[in-house]
């Protein structure tokens, strides 16, 4: 990833030590020192004798260049950003809706919907891998050499030219002073080498060489991680798909019907798939989600779910969930048993089995189906299974009943004044009713009554699309916890003949009209149609009618008179209902009865928009849970981890172990030992000035105390 840890220095094989030093020499315009174990002056190197370089060398130069590396880092970062901003691997329809068909095709061609598997992105990663490899390849030998060599042959002239250089004299002989200083340097953590030349003595020292190793480790780690990642990636799968050997299955079909070209055998070495297993069931496969479909991956063993347990916090949030699993393998004499939980996977034969999620495993629900068009009829008994669908014949035609989910409890934040934080609304069933034209509405029906102001209601919510909130109707319940009474009342409200009768009665009794009056027929007819509008399409339709037919200034008045008419007629029906039930209404009705009427009217007014031909009351249920397992095989994982360890070690070595060299040149002249101290940190660090100053002071002190 990095090009020149060293600047290119000619005569590599002969001599060099520190590239950054050279760089500094160049930039500081210090006279070029002689740096060589032999005697090649650097002045010769100023015009290097460049051999004619071959194509390979030029290519290597390009691949290992720093500019390429930085460009790649930035390009990969930008591609990664695109991948997070644009949601990946969604169904294609979502993209078409978002971008339109033209841009959808463009983006699809660019691979933007699965960017991390797009050929150009893999190419970028590949280049990064090559660039880093070239770098490691080119620099490792030099670095290792540099870590080991003490450079005892540096010339006096070079030392003097160093940025960090100091000179003083001592009284002892060169040998004794050299010994003392060498020991002192060792105490400072330096490794030391001595060499006696004809007329001087050289002590070369260095420390922190591991810092240089950090460079190799951190860069090689990138290569290791990429290789590990490649082993675990789905590149082979993509290639097989391109060759047409694999076809993604997009249909929702039973496992047994999935064709062979969408099935991967047990020899596939790396995958990541998931499967839901209901309690008491087993599976020897997982599904791998691929773009807008999936593939079936076979396992060499069978996983069975014995039991699934889940615990919840008071808020209803899952606290923990775990599965008692069984592995059945031909190679095993007896099945293996183990409990897995989130963060506690089971590794078996290189396959890792994770507790990923949970869902309904096909709970059985008993539903009482009331016809909302003919509520007087006996309700039907339906047995439904979650994730299955059945047909429902109604006066409005054939409907598909798709049961989606069942929940044994529903916890929501409680009302402020209840003194409790959360309230459990009890079991619920979620289902869709799909009309013959394919349109579907989603319903959620609760099993137990909800008490509102001490009156029991049955709750049912409806929404047309999953993105909407549910709109709820509250069906008032009888004293015995049934809804028969409401259905009887609804039956009366839908009974056209009876309403006409009541309308006539009211026209006669309350308006004093007779059948002969010109307005009599209009009145009764409009009364009847108002009630019909109310019961069939709801209160909103009544308001709408007023908005369409009455001028704005009289609208409110009209609406309240409309409502009065509806209330009057339905009220009279309600009195009839009470009489039928044997209640004495001669002295008026009780407050409780009046409240029931209001509640029933509210529910009635919403039945139109509710839009269902049936009301399905959840009666009994048998809860079956399913565990959501994620099963993976990642042979590259340990390689990636090895790379990670190398990376972490490398980064810390590189930043916190500083390679620095020191030279002490001792020459006896006129009975005194002249000492020349010079140092070169691998990287120019401001701290080193201080360090050198202190070290120099210390060595000066030591040399004088000989």
């Amino acid at each position, binding site marked *: *990833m*990095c*090009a*020149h*840890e060293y600047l290119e220095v000619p005569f590599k094989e002969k001599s060099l030590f520190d590239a950054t030093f050279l*760089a500094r020499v160049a930039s500081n315009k210090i006279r070029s020192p002689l740096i060589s174990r032999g005697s090649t002056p650097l002045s010769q190197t100023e015009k290097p004798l460049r051999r004619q370089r071959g194509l390979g060398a030029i290519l290597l130069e390009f691949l290992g260049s*720093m500019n390429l*590396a*930085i460009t790649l*880092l*930035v390009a*990969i*970062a930008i591609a*990664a*950003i695109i*991948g*997070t*901003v644009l*949601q990946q691997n969604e169904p294609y329809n979502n993209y078409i809706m978002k971008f339109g068909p033209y841009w959808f095709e463009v983006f699809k061609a660019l691979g933007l919907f699965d960017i*991390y598997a797009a050929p150009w992105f893999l190419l970028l990663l590949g280049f990064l891998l090559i660039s880093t490899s070239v770098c490691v390849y080119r620099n490792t030998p030099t670095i290792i050499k540099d870590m080991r060599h003490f450079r005892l042959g540096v010339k006096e002239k070079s030392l003097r030219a160093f940025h960090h250089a100091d000179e003083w004299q001592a009284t002892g002989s060169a040998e004794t002073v050299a010994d003392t200083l060498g020991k*002192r340097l060792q*105490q*400072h953590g330096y490794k030391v080498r001595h060499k006696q030349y004809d007329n001087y003595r050289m002590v070369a020292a260095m420390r922190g060489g591991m810092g240089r190793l950090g460079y190799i480790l951190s860069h090689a780690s990138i290569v290791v991680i990429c290789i590990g*990642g490649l082993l675990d990636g789905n590149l082979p799968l993509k290639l097989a798909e391109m060759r047409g050997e694999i076809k993604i299955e997009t249909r929702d079909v039973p496992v047994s019907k999935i064709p062979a070209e969408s099935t991967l055998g047990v020899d596939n070495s790396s995958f*990541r798939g998931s499967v839901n297993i209901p309690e008491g069931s087993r599976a020897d496969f997982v599904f791998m989600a691929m773009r807008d479909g999936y593939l079936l991956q076979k396992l060499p063993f069978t996983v069975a779910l014995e039991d699934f347990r889940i615990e919840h*916090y008071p*808020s209803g*949030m*899952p*606290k*923990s*969930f775990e599965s008692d699993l069984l592995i059945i393998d031909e190679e095993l004499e007896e099945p293996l048993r183990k409990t897995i*939980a*989130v*963060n506690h*996977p089971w590794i078996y034969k290189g396959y*890792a089995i*994770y507790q*990923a999620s949970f869902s309904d495993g096909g709970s059985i629900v008993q539903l009482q189906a009331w016809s909302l068009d003919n509520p007087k009829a006996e309700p039907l008994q339906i047995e439904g299974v979650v994730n299955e669908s059945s047909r429902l014949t109604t006066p409005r035609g054939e409907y598909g009943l798709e049961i989606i989910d069942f929940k044994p409890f529903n916890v929501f934040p409680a009302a402020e004044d209840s003194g409790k934080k959360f309230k459990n609304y009890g079991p619920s069933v979620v289902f869709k009713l799909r009309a013959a034209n394919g349109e579907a509405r989603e319903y959620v029906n609760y099993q137990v009554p909800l008490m509102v102001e001490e009156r029991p209601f049955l709750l049912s919510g409806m929404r047309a699309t999953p993105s909407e909130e549910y709109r709820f109707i509250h069906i008032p319940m009888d004293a015995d916890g049934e809804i028969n009474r409401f259905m009887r009342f609804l039956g009366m409200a839908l009974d056209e003949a009876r309403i006409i009768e009541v309308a006539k009665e009211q026209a006669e009794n309350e308006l004093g009209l007779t059948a002969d009056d010109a307005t009599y027929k209009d009145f009764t007819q409009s009364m009847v149609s108002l009630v019909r509008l109310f019961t069939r399409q709801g209160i909103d339709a009544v308001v709408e009618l007023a908005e369409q037919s009455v001028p704005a200034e009289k609208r409110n008045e009209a609406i309240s008179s409309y409502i009065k008419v509806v209330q009057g007629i339905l009220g009279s029906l309600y009195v009839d209902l009470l009489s039928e039930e044997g209640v004495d209404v001669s002295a008026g009705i009780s407050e409780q009865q009046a409240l029931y009427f209001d509640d029933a009217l509210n529910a009635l007014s919403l039945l139109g928009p509710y839009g269902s031909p049936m009301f399905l009351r959840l009666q009994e249920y048998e809860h079956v849970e399913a565990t959501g397992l*994620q*099963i*993976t095989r*990642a042979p590259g*994982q340990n390689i*990636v*981890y090895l790379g*990670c360890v190398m*990376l*972490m070690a490398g*980064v*810390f070595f590189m*930043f*916190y172990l500083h390679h620095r060299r020191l030279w002490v040149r001792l020459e006896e002249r006129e009975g005194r030992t002249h000492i020349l101290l010079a140092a070169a940190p691998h*990287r120019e*660090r*401001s*701290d080193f000035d*201080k360090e050198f100053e*202190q070290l120099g002071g*210390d060595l000066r002190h030591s040399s004088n105390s000989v």
Partner: protein
Amino acid sequence: MSVSSEAMHSELDTTPFLKRLGVFDWLWALMVVAGCIVAQRLYSSLMDGYEVGILYGTAGGLIWLGWGWKPMRGFSIAVALLSLAAIGLYGGELARGESSFFLKFLISSQSAVMWMSALYVMATAAYIFALAVGSNFTGKVASAMTWSATVMGTVGLMVRWRESYLMGADVGHIPVSNLYEVFILFSVMTALLYLTYERRYNNRAMGAFVLTVISAAVGFILWYTFDREAHHIQPLVPALQSYWMKIHVPANFVGYGAFALAAMLGVAYLLMERRPNGLLAKRLPSPEILDDIMYKAIALGFAFFTVATVLGAMWAAEAWGGYWSWDPKETWALIVWLNYAAWLHLRLTKGWRGSPLAWWAVVGLFVTLFAFVGVNMFLSGLHSYGTL
């Protein structure tokens, strides 16, 4: 720039490291180990083997920090005493938080965080004032306030940890699980990093810049508390119930803190550069030193961020079944990592210095900020528990 005598001493002294330690150093180590043993005895039922390992690893780290950076000791002792006082005052009943005077107004986690917030904001003002008028005394007051704020913030986190267990043994968890908690961690971590540099380079002018970013974090905490009521302790979703959280998140925040610090020094550098003879140039360290501190902070941040990302990948492998899923949070961690990798290459290999890198560090803060907060706000993914 002068280096503290301590640092000078440590570099000059050639006696072996362990022999250089004095009575107080060993006393410190003893105290930390004793604290750990007590904690392990008291709470062993709540910890698994890894967590005990983390406990002793933390102890080792704390001893080492205290040896190398003496103020850490006073800081830790203050935090420990105040936290223990709070635990004692609670006495196993969460309701005491309302009735006990000291808890209610000083050291319940909520109050401690409020104190922290107030002190950081005041410290920011003091640093800016000290920078503007060159008052040495105000600078010292600012440092003292920053230390106090950091103590209170850490106490807030410690006590919150305890409070979560008082809510119920199954609710209890280390308070680094949502945005509210990690913003406190961010403030504290950034301040601690800053305080080490302040001491090492004996310069308080940098505080005016670094504390500004902490004040911004405090602003977020306050908005989050009062507008969103996010300070209530929430139980953990199953995926977060793991010892990994105790190492992954703090390591991440050393990284975030260091990057934020580097960015603010970058701002200081750029402002100083515009007027080479201005006030800032007079008070701040020399451009070379500022540049060097910026590099040190990014190197430290990068190292810890690397560790945090690796730990995150390992945790992901254990909880989600794959060490890398290109989840938005993961991807943004990679983007941040690539960004600073490029920065480091430019500096170390291409030899860049000064304003281009300062600019890059400032831009880096926004990249980091997006990875830290933006992902949770704008993108959906597996890290969805940190939503706004």
